[in-house]
């Protein structure tokens, strides 16, 4: 804000500088001085402005506050007035004493010298029965203290939040990299700032933004002195920045000013823009929260355990829904079937008798089996695409094989790339998920390619199976194989690659064209022609011609596609995913009121056309960007997370301090490994992250059920999974009704009848954590020390009591926190697995108060429940109602605090301040 004063000041300053600019250009010193003075003056101006601003808002605040305090004053006066009238009945001792004091004052003569001389009367003890104070009135000024009856105080604890399940630590809770100041009681008021070692503040890397004040200085200086290197240099010096930065900033300032002017001039433009922005919105933006915030493992939004940055894992065995067998009945008057019938295009294509068949009626199972073999992307879009592609490739195959190229190669490219392009259509893969998809596909393609190169024959046959098993296709394949062998033997293979792809693209396009054309009319001829042509001519020639054809069709199709809004397009894509190529269902369920079945059908064909078109780019870029594949993948993941990127800046310190933590086993190593679902689309190979990490694949992995690395669950029946005979139990896992064969739970008392898989009524007893079948635990004053956890009802041996919940923190974080906790001699850290430590300090449940005992009545156990490690507390023996719960914290012997050391066998809990005093007793 500029005031009048500032204006006058700047005006007076600008005059001499302007004069100097004209005259003293030769004198460098003079100029720099001049510039400096300008900068200085504008700086001063800013400061003055700032103070004027502060003064102003202080004044405003003062006005406001005075009315507030006036109101408060009235309130307090009101209290006096109302209570005075009431005091007739109720004797107010404070008022009475107040008056008494005044009386004493009046009666006692004051001697002036007394005032300060004798006021230092020291009082020796607090226990004295009367309170004697400064000797203003001698002995009169003494009152008998009123005793406040003692109230038993609570054992110390930090306020904590109840958690019914573990939570992953949020970033702002981290103590890593933060300075922590301890108040050392031993040294009075000394302040210790520790944790210095590696906690260097890393905020510095963030570039400082230009503030409005700096802009102001830059603008003023350049306005007055003109733009020159000297000015910029000096500005840079004054503002502590680079010259280039200043220059760039100045340019941007000018730009902003210009645009602001423009905006002022014509506001219509803005309106148009906002409208555009609205229509740009699409389904991906809308479903973004679903993709990013929905936890696919817990089936809840905003899962605190797995976070919102999980990898999207697409299971490979997604069932194909909605295979519409009730084919030919038109869904309505706008149904594409009705239209097509009327137009009599039933005879679709002699070459492709399967086409219509496949479109209308599809045998899902057959397909599924084909796809698994193909190791391709699983979304139904992809599948559909493949179908269609199958046709085109088959003809491609012919062409390509004639030109003695490898057929499988382009074919596979196209296949997968089609999927790629399917996502491309949606907003050009703007959204990270899509990108990620693409990348994954890309990798798969590349994998396939590699394999193909290794085992040409086998992969070839594979693709043949995955094709439509046309006999003549077969023949062509064998041709190809031969041809391939030839080309393989020569080193040409690689060089040939790119032309192949380009070639194939064109083939694909032509094929698509023909399909479209066929739909419109006269496709028979064109396809035939093209195929013939391609058969006859070399690839180059044919491609040229095809290009011509597809350009024209593209134009035609483009006009058709344009009427589709972005949101409609994305709804359509979702529809494809859900219903497959069924325009009736898509139109009815997703585009109701927006598009007719006929339109959807047309658009579907148009999109497919485009897909093949886009395939080429994809394929090319894939081959080129082979090496970049991995890199891109990670980047795209970051993109997806959008600002929630979890960056771990630190590295492990080798000689890290290890705080004391509760453990399950005495062993040093961590037997448990954190599970992360793998995204393998085929049976997991050696690269499978799960296998590498040493965990089993779980139901959340992308790999098919037949994956050898999967945990198979159990088949227990009568044993109720309660012993080590149950493979789940033996592996420290809870049974999972999704995985195990006979594990289920009945509802109610069984009178309604449970599911009949097992054929008996033996319920699985190994799902207690999953079902939260826990005992009631009470929090109370421990018999040993501080707080303790008590059992409300008696239980038998090995009964599950409850879960030890808390925040999931990294080991490094745990070390840092542990340092703090150890200082307070209170720690709720519990080693969970190789990746995480549970911290129940601020978040947890009552079991965190269970005390340590070397001879406990409970034991803790880390159990894998639905892919997550959780800590269950179990009864080691029979426990009666009301008994306190103890378990062995199993601290590492060298780190354990004094009270938890083995030989002493003291049962005091670590959390309490007083050292164990030997009164620790183990109960029963």
């Amino acid at each position, binding site marked *: 804000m500029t005031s009048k004063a500032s204006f006058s000041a700047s005006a007076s300053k600008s005059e001499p500088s302007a004069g100097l600019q004209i005259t003293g250009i030769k004198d460098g010193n003079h100029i720099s001085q001049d510039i400096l003075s300008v900068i200085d003056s504008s700086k001063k101006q*800013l*400061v003055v402005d700032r*103070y004027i601003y*502060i*003064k102003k*808002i*202080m004044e405003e*605040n*003062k006005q*406001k*506050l*005075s009315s*507030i305090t006036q*109101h408060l*004053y009235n309130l*307090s006066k009101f*209290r*006096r007035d109302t*209570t005075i009238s*009431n005091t007739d009945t109720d004797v*107010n001792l*404070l008022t009475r004493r*107040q008056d008494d*004091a*005044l009386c004493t*004052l009046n009666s006692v003569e*004051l001697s002036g010298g007394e*005032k*300060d001389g004798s*006021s*230092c009367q*020291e*009082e020796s003890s*607090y226990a004295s029965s009367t*309170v004697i*104070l*400064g000797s*203003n009135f001698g002995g009169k*000024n003494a*009152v*008998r*203290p*009123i*005793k*406040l009856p*003692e*109230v038993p*105080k*609570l054992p*110390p*604890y930090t*306020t904590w*939040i109840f958690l019914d399940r573990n939570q992953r630590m949020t970033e702002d*809770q981290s103590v890593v990299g933060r300075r922590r*100041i301890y108040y050392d009681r031993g040294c009075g008021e000394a*302040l210790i700032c520790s944790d210095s070692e590696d906690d260097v503040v890393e905020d510095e890397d963030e570039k400082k933004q230009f*503030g*409005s004040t700096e802009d*102001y200085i830059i603008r003023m200086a350049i306005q007055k002195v003109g733009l020159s290197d000297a000015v910029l240099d000096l500005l840079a010096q004054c503002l502590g920045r680079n010259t280039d930065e200043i220059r760039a900033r100045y340019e941007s300032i000018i730009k902003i000013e210009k645009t602001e002017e423009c905006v002022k001039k014509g506001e219509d433009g803005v309106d148009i823009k906002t409208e555009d922005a609205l229509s740009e919105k699409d389904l991906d933006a809308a479903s973004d929260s679903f993709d990013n915030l929905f936890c696919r493992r817990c089936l809840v939004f905003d899962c605190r355990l797995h976070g919102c940055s999980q990898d999207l894992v697409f299971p490979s065995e997604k069932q194909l829904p909605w295979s519409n067998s009730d084919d030919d009945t038109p869904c309505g008057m706008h149904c594409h079937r009705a239209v097509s019938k009327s137009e009599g295009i039933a005879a679709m294509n002699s070459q492709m008798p399967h086409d219509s068949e496949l479109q209308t009626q599809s045998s899902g199972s057959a397909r599924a089996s084909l796809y698994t073999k193909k190791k391709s992307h699983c979304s139904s879009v992809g599948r559909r695409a493949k179908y269609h592609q199958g046709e085109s490739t088959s003809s491609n195959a012919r062409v390509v094989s004639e030109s003695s190229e490898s057929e499988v190669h382009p074919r596979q490219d196209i296949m997968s790339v089609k999927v790629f392009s399917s996502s491309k259509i949606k907003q050009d893969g703007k959204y990270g998920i899509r990108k990620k998809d693409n990348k994954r596909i890309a990798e798969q393609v590349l994998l396939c390619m590699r394999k193909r190169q290794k085992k040409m024959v086998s992969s070839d046959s594979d693709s043949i199976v995955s094709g439509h098993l046309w006999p003549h296709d077969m023949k062509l394949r064998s041709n190809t194989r031969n041809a391939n062998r030839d080309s393989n033997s020569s080193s040409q293979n690689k060089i040939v690659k790119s032309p192949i792809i380009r070639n194939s693209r064109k083939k694909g396009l032509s094929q698509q064209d023909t399909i479209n054309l066929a739909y419109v009319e006269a496709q028979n001829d064109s396809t035939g022609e093209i195929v013939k042509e391609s058969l006859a001519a070399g690839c180059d020639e044919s491609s040229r011609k095809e290009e011509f054809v597809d350009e024209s069709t593209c134009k035609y199709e483009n006009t058709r596609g344009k009427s589709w809004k972005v949101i409609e397009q994305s709804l359509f894509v979702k529809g494809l995913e859900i219903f497959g190529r069924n325009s009736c269902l898509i139109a009815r369920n997703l585009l109701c009121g927006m598009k007719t079945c006929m339109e959807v059908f047309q658009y579907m064909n148009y999109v497919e056309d485009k897909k093949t078109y886009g395939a080429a780019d994809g394929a090319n870029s894939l081959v080129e960007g082979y090496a970049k594949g991995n890199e891109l993948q990670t980047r795209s993941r970051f993109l997806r997370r959008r600002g929630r990127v979890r960056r771990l800046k630190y590295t492990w310190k080798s000689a890290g301090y290890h705080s004391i933590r509760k453990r399950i086993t005495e062993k040093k190593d961590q037997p448990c490994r954190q599970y992360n679902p793998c995204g393998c689309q085929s049976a997991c190979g050696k690269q499978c992250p799960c296998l590498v990490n040493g965990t089993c694949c779980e139901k959340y992995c992308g790999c098919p059920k037949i994956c050898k690395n999967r945990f198979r669950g159990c088949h227990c029946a009568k044993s109720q999974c309660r012993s080590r005979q149950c493979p789940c139990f033996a592996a420290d896992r809870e049974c999972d009704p999704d995985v195990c064969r006979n594990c289920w739970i009945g509802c109610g008392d069984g009178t309604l009848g449970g599911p009949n898989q097992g054929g008996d009524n033996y319920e699985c007893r190994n799902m207690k954590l999953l079902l939260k079948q826990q005992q009631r635990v009470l929090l109370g004053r421990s018999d040993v020390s501080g707080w303790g956890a008590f059992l409300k009802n008696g239980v038998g041996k090995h009964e599950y009591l409850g879960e030890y919940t808390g925040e999931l923190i990294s080991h490094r974080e745990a070390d840092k926190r542990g340092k703090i906790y150890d200082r307070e001699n209170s720690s709720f850290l519990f080693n969970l697995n190789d990746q995480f430590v549970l911290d129940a300090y*601020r978040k947890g449940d009552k079991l965190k108060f269970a005390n340590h005992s070397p001879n406990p009545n409970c034991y803790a156990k880390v159990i894998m429940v639905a892919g997550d490690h959780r800590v269950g507390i179990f009864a080691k023996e029979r426990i009666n109602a009301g008994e306190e719960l103890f378990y062995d914290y199993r601290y590492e012997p060298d780190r354990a605090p004094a009270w938890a050391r083995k030989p002493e066998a003291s049962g005091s809990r670590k959390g309490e301040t007083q050292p164990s005093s030997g009164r620790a007793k183990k109960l029963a």
Partner: protein
Amino acid sequence: MLKYSSVSSLLSGWERGGEMAKTGQLGCEAAVGSLTPAKKKEYKVSNRLHEGKRPLYAISFNFIDARYYDVFATVGGNRVTVYRCLEQGLIAVLQAYVDEDKDESFYTLSWACDLDGTPLLVAGGSNGIIRVINAGTEKIHKVSFVGHGDSVNEIRTQPLKPSLVVSASKDESVRLWNVHTGICILIFAGAGGHRNEVLSVDFHPSDIYRIASCGMDNTVKIWSMKEFWTYVEKSFTWTDLPSKFPTKYVQFPVFIASVHSNYVDCTRWLGDFVLSKSVDNEIVLWEPKTKEQSPGEGAVDILQKYPVPECDIWFIKFSCDFHYNAAAIGNREGKIYVWELQSSPPVLIARLAHAQCKSPIRQTALSFDGSTILSCCEDGSIWRWDVVQS
């Protein structure tokens, strides 16, 4: 002889612009007050008392009820004492309370009042138990508040509804209590709560939903209980056991300010601005600029600074008079700085020092109109300063 120094040279702030601190970014400078006292007022010691050897941590006038404007109370050790300031510098003891637990050490007190106007004293300390004393009957008022898991560092009273008190504790929580029914209504802690001891808390003077708290995690947090106000209302009519009240957790503050880089041990609202101090020898006045859409985020605009030399130990608190015209703060060496709060740049009204007052002053109390300043010291003494009428 009493010695005090409030010599000064009057200088208007603008001419002294060179003293403006060069901290922070350009254009965001704070107006820093000059340490040369303005000769606005002169104070001199009119009395001093010695309660005992244990340190006195808090002293406070009763601003809740106009009858008791001249009544103040102190806490130290296991004792709460009520006094009256009389004319000519006299101080009369009215009441004294002693906790039967000898280990109790009270850290804080606040005046409150019941719905019927009964004057109440609310005190808390190392035991974590908040004592509510009915000064009208000289008995414990209904119940003591048990719930804090560790010592209570500060208690403040809602001036608009003086039966609501808020307490800050070492257990990292801030709790809102109703002295009328003895209910713990809200707990301000959890995911967005303080990460270390809470040292100070204050009610907004006009926005009844708002409180500010600060502590050893170096932050000042502003909380809103607007969404939980139904519980506050419910607490007044609750007839069941207080322990059965559905106490709610307020886990997320509306604003987190990192103004200081060390323990923040005192915070007070000044209208919509916030005064807070750390151990950096100054009180800082800043404006919280909250964003409506995104709670928890926002910017801090540091407006003014009130330097207080030798004030680098923690748990030294300042106090304001009823109208927030002045603030008084003691320091490590027993000196008191009286700042004019609302002038810009700040003006040091007076610097109070006495040759015999050497121990750290933990808390001060300004009388209703600021004419009397009381201070309580680590050595257990109370000093009374009265303005010199000229």
